[in-house]
């Protein structure tokens, strides 16, 4: 085994997990972004950093180009603030992922609850296609989620969640995803 390459990759992952706090501004559903992208890398910090800072805070601005609604041909540009406050690997407040608490926050394993929001859909967003369909109002979305890192040597992250839209007729939705840090 080439330990120098493993050491370099580990240092790279430490850098990645500290600096790549999720900043997706359109993270609140619906969005084509994968659910894992809203919290990418955070669980890896608990593995590659022995002493997490008490608070990690980022703020800024962002923009996104995405379909007006899931299935539409037309696209639009969204913009807004980016704020992400992480209290160790225990709790968070984020424009990406809402407000949440990791009930289980062990090395390589997180299970938690959060409350986020769904932006809904308005007729005026795409009048040509949505006229007569009524507006889908903004909805609070409670979520149960979990993430697991396969191992420190193979830091594949498996993430799953289930969430429920509280608006009338909202329904429930679940995601299962996996992601891997790419070496330079």
């Amino acid at each position, binding site marked *: 085994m080439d330990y120098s390459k493993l050491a370099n990759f580990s240092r790279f992952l430490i850098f990645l997990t500290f600096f790549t706090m999720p900043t997706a501004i359109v993270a609140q559903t619906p969005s084509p972004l994968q659910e894992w992208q809203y919290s990418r890398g955070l669980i890896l910090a608990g593995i590659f950093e022995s002493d997490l800072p008490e608070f990690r805070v980022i703020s800024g601005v962002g923009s996104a180009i995405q379909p007006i609604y899931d299935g539409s041909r037309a696209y639009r540009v969204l913009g807004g603030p980016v704020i992400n406050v992480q209290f160790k690997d225990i709790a968070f407040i984020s424009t990406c992922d809402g407000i949440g608490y990791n009930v289980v926050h062990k090395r390589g394993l997180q299970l938690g609850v959060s409350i986020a929001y769904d932006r809904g859909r308005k007729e005026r967003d795409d009048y040509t296609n*949505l006229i007569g369909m009524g507006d889908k109002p903004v909805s609070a979305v409670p979520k149960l989620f979990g993430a697991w890192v396969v191992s420190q040597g193979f830091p594949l992250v498996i993430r799953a969640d289930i969430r429920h839209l509280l608006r009338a007729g909202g329904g429930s939705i679940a995601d299962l995803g996996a992601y891997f840090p790419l070496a330079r």
Partner: protein
Amino acid sequence: MFFGPSITVADKRYLQDMYGVTNQESASSRHVAYSIKQSGIEATGLGFSATWTLSRHYLVNIDAAINHLGHLPTDSPLVERASGHVVAFSFVYTW
């Protein structure tokens, strides 16, 4: 940088709410009625995320994804295109 897939499933209530067209909605819109009576795959997708450090505190992030709707949503008259893409950029300060 991170890369990975995901799959999203939804119950029939969610699918009907987002992709269905009731008889009432059909009468007031240009769409034929479409009813979803079963749960199923809402979408599958791939995502990519990356960060560039400009300095000790300033970062630029990019997130991109492609999402493909399942056959239940795709059959909806509301869906013009089964695949959607998103690209998001952000410029942030790390305190």
